[in-house]
């Protein structure tokens, strides 16, 4: 009896240990959230700067106490949207090719190439952007300016490719063989099988890939900083306008900002944070809703 009791005890201790490990993720999120929200909301609570001016202002001039980030929010949204519109379809179709159409040897090669693309640090995308994309945009831009929303979209689209491809591909190839056989047996073609059975069945994995892709696009800082122009005002009205996404605003000035200026950079972080929360919630609900019916 004694041995069994001790074994039982050992099990619960280790289960507790596992719980703590899982909980570390929660603790770190809470710590970061509290830290960012606390510092981010301080200026508005002690109303040394009005939240309304902060969220709707279109000029960022710390020197003359003007802190408007509306034009940055618009910039971030346009850049991420553009990157998703270009990057996600290309990524999902590539994932379909790798797991469904490619022979096992070619599939393996492309999978390796995509994992390589995932390994390339975002800084090198920035350097590539600076070296190739910016001069190219310079040529075709009416503003004779390489740094632009278009350059940012292209860099971000390339960057989210590997994330979306590798995660989507894993979940597509995890769809059971029986579904494909069932579909073929009913006289469906290969393409119909892929788009009517396999992709819907792999939806949750693909959706995860898209979430991470969006997260990476909205959160990218270093690569974007080299190609976006970082103007101090101006809502982008054309692809060739410059933008200052929320992330670069933080990275550019966090090192040296102090006092209200630093706190309002934390507030920029809060806005970014809320974006991510919204995206995660929206997509979680989407994934649960589809599977349930």
């Amino acid at each position, binding site marked *: 009896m004694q041995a069994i009791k001790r074994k039982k005890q050992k099990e619960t201790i280790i289960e507790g240990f596992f719980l703590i490990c899982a909980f570390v993720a929660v603790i770190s999120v809470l710590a970061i959230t509290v830290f960012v929200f606390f510092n981010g909301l301080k200026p508005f609570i002690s109303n040394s700067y009005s939240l309304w001016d902060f969220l709707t202002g279109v*000029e960022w001039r710390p020197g003359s106490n003007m802190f408007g980030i509306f034009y940055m929010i618009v910039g971030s949204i346009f850049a991420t949207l553009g990157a998703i519109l270009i990057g996600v379809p290309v990524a999902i179709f590539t994932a379909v090719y790798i797991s469904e159409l490619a022979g096992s040897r070619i599939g393996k090669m492309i999978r390796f190439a995509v994992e390589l693309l995932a390994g390339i640090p975002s800084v090198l995308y920035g350097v590539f952007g600076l070296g190739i994309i910016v001069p190219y945009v310079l040529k075709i831009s009416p503003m004779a300016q390489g740094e632009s929303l278009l350059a940012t979209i292209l860099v971000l689209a390339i960057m989210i490719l590997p994330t979306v491809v590798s995660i989507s591909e894993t979940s597509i190839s995890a769809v059971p063989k029986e579904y494909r056989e069932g579909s073929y047996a009913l006289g469906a073609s290969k393409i119909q099988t892929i788009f009517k059975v396999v992709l819907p069945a792999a939806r949750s994995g693909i959706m995860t890939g898209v979430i991470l892709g969006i997260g990476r696009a909205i959160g990218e800082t270093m690569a974007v900083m080299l190609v976006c*122009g*970082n103007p101090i*005002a101006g809502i982008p009205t054309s692809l060739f306008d410059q933008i200052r996404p929320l992330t670069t605003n933080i990275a550019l000035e966090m*090192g040296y900002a102090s006092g209200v200026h630093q706190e309002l950079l934390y507030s920029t972080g809060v806005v970014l944070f809320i974006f991510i929360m919204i995206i995660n919630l929206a997509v979680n609900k989407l994934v649960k809703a589809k599977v349930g019916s």
Partner: protein
Amino acid sequence: MSKSFKKVLVSLLIGATVLTLAGCGSSGSTTSTTKEAISGEINGGGSTSVQKIIDAAGSEFTALNPEAKFTYSGTGSSDGIKGATAGTYSFGCASRELKTEEKGSLTELIFAYDGIAVVLNPANTVTNLTKDQVAKIYMGEITNWNEVGGADAPIVVVSREDGSGTRDAVEELVGFKEKLKADATIKEGNGNVQTTVAGNTNAIGYVSLTFVDKTVKAIDVDSVKATVDNVKNKTYPISRPFLAMYDESKVDDATLAFLDFLMSTEGQAIVEEHGGIAV
């Protein structure tokens, strides 16, 4: 866990711990000053404009005092000031005067003067601009090169991030304080401004004189050539001091020794050698 899986994980752990122990083998960063050998880790940081001079002075200092370790991170003047006050840097550097609220308990010393060159792309035909023209360009009142004797092309204005000392000095001296035009491109650091101007025929930017090389063209301001001599004899209108600063209560002897070396004749020779103007 199956045997082979456990083996991999265990070997990963052992390998890692051995490496980290080796990592922190050598002594921690204790600072001690015996009469002849100065030792300890000096981690400076701040303005990117001073990087060339400070790095050269640092390597000469460590040559003379092999026990001392010297590093400098170029993160911008205001960061240097913040780091010096918070003590995350042994000493901070700034390429502009300190604002009153930044002074706090910092002791400052000017170790050099530096001209700020207005740089254009070598392909640009313009060779001279008045201070007023530069101000109008940066405020967005002049937008085409043909208004200042150049080709018919839009002017692409490149400026520095808000914490840059160089930007603060230029805005002050040229006279467009806080009136920079909205769609100016902001680049972080002298090098970054330089590559942008080098890469765009219609761009105009400003960098520390110590950074000017063959990739960009420094133009005359108010028809005065941007040279070290013209800055020394004060005819060149845009120049500013290089400040080093530290907090009395937090500074260590090794840093003080380095700053004394910087102000010594040998230190000032290094300043001259790297395009700065000795004090």
